[in-house]
């Protein structure tokens, strides 16, 4: 027998989401269409070329933009994805993560800077971030699916929610950590606030920002895989299939492909950004 005062957020949330669905359906439909279009374009581009050609291109790009080590790593990671027969799934996953990370950063970076400047904003954001990070990620999927139905869009939305907190926290930390005298220098030479932000603060904050981006990528990847449960496709779908059919081989292959994709995204993004600094 439950208590009469039992707390049941679902009793309020479910009608709220129904109401949102009924009244804002065109907006959600538009979001769905935009995300689907962007995702489709990236996926299409990645899958347009035969795998060996794309691997060659990626290796070449890493060699030119970063260094030989990154090029070899890129070749190995993508080669594994291809040889394990999970090429399409891997490309779908890369597209999903790329879009989710781009949106997460676009939201978290400005908010993080704002929080670094205004303690009140940081105080307001902190509990929200705590909730976003501690609620099990499956839970985000429920409202996301209720609003956007099954498929890649709810997966992306849930991934963004999961990817924002680390990026936001580390952005705040990075900008807090910029030495005070460097900012003072900017003011003393008569630099505009925007110039101080981009030419002084941003370069000084870059190492910590890179850690944030790295965390954002890895957590997003973890979430995208989880989102295989709601029909996001990609490697997550393979893992889910392996789990439901108890196929050890498929599960392991998909798991290793995820590791390969993670390594690729992490090292390449970090290498490119670090190279850009010097």
């Amino acid at each position: 027998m439950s208590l009469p005062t039992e707390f049941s957020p679902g009793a309020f949330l479910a009608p709220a989401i129904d109401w949102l669905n009924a009244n804002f359906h065109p907006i959600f439909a538009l979001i769905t269409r935009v995300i689907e279009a962007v995702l489709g374009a990236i996926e299409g581009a990645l899958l347009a070329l035969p795998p060996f050609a794309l691997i060659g291109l990626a290796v070449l790009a890493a060699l030119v933009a970063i260094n030989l080590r990154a090029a070899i790593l890129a070749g190995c990671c993508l080669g594994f994805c291809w040889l394990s027969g999970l090429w399409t799934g891997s490309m779908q996953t890369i597209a999903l993560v790329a879009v989710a990370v781009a949106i997460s950063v676009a939201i978290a970076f400005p908010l993080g800077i704002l929080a670094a400047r205004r303690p009140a904003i940081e105080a307001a954001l902190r509990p929200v971030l705590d909730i976003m990070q501690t609620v099990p990620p499956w839970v985000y999927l429920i409202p996301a699916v209720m609003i956007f139905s099954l498929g890649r869009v709810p997966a992306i939305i849930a991934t963004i929610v999961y990817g924002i907190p680390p990026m936001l926290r580390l952005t705040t930390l990075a900008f807090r950590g910029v030495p005070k005298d460097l900012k003072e220098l900017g003011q003393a030479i008569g630099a505009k606030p925007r110039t101080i932000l981009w030419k002084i603060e941003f370069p000084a904050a870059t190492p910590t920002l890179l850690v944030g981006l790295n965390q954002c990528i890895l957590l997003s990847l973890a979430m995208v895989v989880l989102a295989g449960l709601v029909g996001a496709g990609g490697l997550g779908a393979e893992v889910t299939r392996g789990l439901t059919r108890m196929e050890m081989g498929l599960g392991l292959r998909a798991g290793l492909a995820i590791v390969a994709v993670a390594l690729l995204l992490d090292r390449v993004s970090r290498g490119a950004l670090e190279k850009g600094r010097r």
Partner: protein
Amino acid sequence: MEKANTDTAEVLIDCQSVWKVFGDRSGEAIRAITERGLSKQQVLQDYNCVVGVSDATLQVRRGEIFCIMGLSGSGKSTLIRLLNRLIEPSLGKVLVKGQDIATLDAAALRQMRARHIGMVFQSVALLPQRTVLENAAFGLEVQGVSRDERNRAAEAALAKVGLSDWTARYPSELSGGMQQRVGLARALTSDPEIILMDEPFSALDPLIRRQLQDEFRQLTKDLGKSAVFITHDLDEAIRIGDRIAIMKDGVIIQTGTAEEIVMDPADQYVADFVAGISRLHLIKAHSVMIPAAEWQGAVDGLPRCSPEADIDALIGQITETGSDAVAIAEGDAVVGIVTIRNLLSGVRGDAAPAPAAAA
């Protein structure tokens, strides 16, 4: 002390009764200090306000190096930041080139800082990911000057501080002294009239510090710049400064030339400070001489020196010639006599006895 810019050089920075009290109740705290004479500690207790600078008045003239000397916590770093409005004053006015900087809007203030006031920091504050040249050119880059033009100006400034061969290096490859030269070059690149130096040499070892002090003074004089120089080291202030202001607990206790401060300290605090300073190069003949009439011997046979000769030079004259006194002459006219006794009291920092010499 009214503005006396008719008989002397133009006043570039005019700081009029400026206060800075940190805290929410700074207004009340200032009133309590002026009306009831509360001390710094009492203000902190009663109003939870920290007194940075209280009632500071100073003027920096064109071509002058003005030193502000004080120990840590004396408010000297706050004071220098009030001069370019990195910190807003709680009360009082700062005029730079006759313009009240409190009235400038954000854009005009940026212009003022970019064109007229350079600043050098104790921590140097070089941007680590930029080369020496790019660091030196940074001020002009921010102003939107084209790459060629700003690099030319930066190269010229780096040449002045002797770093022409290091333009393509990164700050981390330079020693502390060289880094501070880059800081100085960066300030010189935008060719400001005033340079604010916030303890620039404090973190350097003594030999390098001395070398940089001499170079800095020479360079500033050659270029005709004015400088406000913050230091916690009285020796440094005396070496570099044309005039020195001594600060304690946010108050300027005394302002004057090195000689004035050493010969006539305003209070015991200053007296304790100057006690250990060597007078040999500081005190000039005109401060220790006695009127020629008080000298019983013949004046004609005495060696001669100018009134601006320092004690060291006078001792040199006396030991070389074996004379008991030196005649101080302006042109052909003898204006006074310095005896061995006068010299000894001069070394101790006492002024001439009986009738005070013309200052």
